[in-house]
């Protein structure tokens, strides 16, 4: 909805993502704020924001598959893992430059995603979700047992990424690397969903039979959705591997996959802002729970320190339950309502 008194008189205006001058100014301010964080932020803040950025890429991909095209996937973490391993193998075995490796990682993830997505030809709904669960277990098994490539349980160490003369070794430089790619990927996702492809995916989500009748090739578009989703996962995986400088099977578990779906649901499905809100909310909640646990253990010392993680998990779970009970449509829905009210302010409609 547009602010009062703003009218679209040209086609470009109605197509614009950022329509008014105020929006452009806010965007510029936000980007400036985002890219100046390393000047004053601590290491902790930098790593937190970087992790949020990396997770946003993965969840944004999942949002395209689950939120826009309605194919639930609970294997996203495995595809992130495929990306991470592929990029590391590309860079270390075949000595590819970083930018080529990140592309290879995306493509490898995407192609493996297509293999599992082929099941979507016949399988629908919750059954399909469970074939992606199978992807999670099968790929996880591959990470552990293809030792000569993945290093098995020991994992692989990763050298810092280089683009030309730039070496991304320090926390600040990694932050810039992650943020630039995150912004590009969000921009890409936003625009992709405004094309014929994006609208076809939405049509498939809303009613796949009707979509097919209207001439949308179901198989092709579902596979494209899987490819895009897993491509995002691959990019996120590459960045994750670069950031922690280490890849290991325990980084890509079923728990993470479910957490990605959780972030998407909490944020709100079928929007680009949803995953961003969801990831930020869940990551901050996680940090809060980690911060709260020592205080709780101090209050009830009888329980001892061994239950450290259990308490934070409990707090985490309770907040998610309460949140979903009170706002099952996700944060983005609230945000949209708030924005509309703000724009129409003196009037109630």
């Amino acid at each position, binding site marked *: 909805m547009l602010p009062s008194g703003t009218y679209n008189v040209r086609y470009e205006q109605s197509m614009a993502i950022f329509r008014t001058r105020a929006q452009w100014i806010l965007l510029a301010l936000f980007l400036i704020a985002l890219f100046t964080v390393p000047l004053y932020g601590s290491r902790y803040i930098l790593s937190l924001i970087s992790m949020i950025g990396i997770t946003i890429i993965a969840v944004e991909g999942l949002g395209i598959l689950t939120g826009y095209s309605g194919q*639930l996937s609970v294997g996203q973490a495995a595809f992130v893992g495929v990306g991470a391993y592929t990029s590391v193998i590309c860079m270390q075995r075949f000595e590819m430059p970083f930018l080529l490796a990140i592309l290879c990682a995306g493509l490898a993830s995407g192609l493996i995603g297509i293999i599992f997505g082929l*099941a979507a030809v*016949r*399988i*629908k709904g*919750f*059954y399909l979700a*469970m*074939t992606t*669960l*199978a992807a999670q*277990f*099968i790929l996880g*098994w591959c990470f*552990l*047992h293809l030792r000569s490539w993945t290093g098995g349980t020991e994992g692989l160490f990763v050298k810092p990424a280089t683009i030309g003369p730039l070496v991304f070794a320090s926390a600040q430089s990694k932050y810039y690397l992650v943020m630039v790619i995150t912004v590009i990927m969000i921009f890409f996702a936003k625009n992709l969903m405004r094309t014929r492809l994006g609208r076809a995916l939405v049509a498939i989500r809303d*009613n796949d*039979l*009707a979509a097919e*009748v209207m001439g949308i090739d179901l198989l092709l578009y579902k596979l494209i959705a899987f490819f895009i989703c897993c491509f995002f996962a691959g990019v996120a995986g590459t960045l994750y591997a670069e950031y922690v400088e280490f890849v290991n099977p325990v980084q890509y578990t079923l728990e993470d996959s*479910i957490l990605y*779906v*959780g972030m998407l*649901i*909490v944020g709100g*499905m079928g929007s680009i802002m949803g995953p961003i809100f969801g990831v930020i909310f869940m990551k901050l909640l996680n940090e809060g729970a980690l911060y709260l646990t020592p205080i709780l253990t101090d209050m009830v010392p009888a*329980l001892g320190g*061994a*239950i450290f*993680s*259990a*308490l934070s*998990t*409990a707090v*985490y*779970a*309770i907040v*998610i*339950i309460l949140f*979903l*009970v*009170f706002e*099952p*449509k996700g944060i983005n829905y609230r945000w949209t309502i708030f924005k509309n009210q703000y724009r129409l302010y003196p009037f109630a409609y």
Partner: protein
Amino acid sequence: MSDIFISSIIYGILIGAVYSLIALGYVVIFKSSKIVSFAQGGILLIGATIAWALLDVVKLPIVLAIIVALIGCAILGLAIERFTLRPIMGQPLLSSVMITVALLWLFDAIAVLTVTGAGRAFPPLMPSGVFQLGEVRISQAQLLVFIIAIILFIIFTIFYRYTKVGLAMRGTAEDHEVIQSFGIKVTNIYSLTWGIAALTAGIGGILMASVLNLNISLELLGWKALIVILIGGLESITGAIIVGPLVGILETLSTVYIDPIVGGGMRDVAPFIVMIIVLLIRPYGLFGLKKIERI
């Protein structure tokens, strides 16, 4: 060679019976609400924990302790339905599913707090003897689990086919408005569903805890049971009962015969590979209802 083969098949059937038992809970919930409840694994754990606490800490007699624990499970199921799922009835189903996932995490955490990492020894409930059939040994406890699963299967089948409440539950899954016009309260049906499902999970949890002792990994049974209902079909009680032992056999056989070749871990992967193949041939599971779609 053939002895290993036969004993792994029998062991698989007995393990699979537990999967069937737990899978029944999923099917009951899915049949009336179209929600796949991930919380089953957690309820199972909580049921076992309550039973352990009553037996080992409060020292109630065995029968009383089990009855109280099962009532506790049923109340837990009712509470889940009333306080977390009923408020968002009619909202996107995925939100409900996510709530059950969060409940799983919550119950896990509670169980970790009470059980602690190493697990607890569960007081013996069942005969510890072993039947000897030629070279093959069958533990009596596992046989008992198998028999209980079969009894529950018969009860559920009769319940859904012949009783009024059972039919009302099936109707609720089809269409809320139609069933309401017959004078049946959808909310009551939901409560009942969750009560029964939690009860089943509790039975499974207590039985398994008495065989395997109480520890956090019991929750994994919930995931195994999920594969069972997907191969069998989400709505099918028959499917759950028949496929459970098949998945059990698949696991033991792949542990015995495939693991030495590929280096371990096939136990967890093989059922998934079979699941994909089955779903590609029959997209609604072996015994699931084929959905007829119209525009």
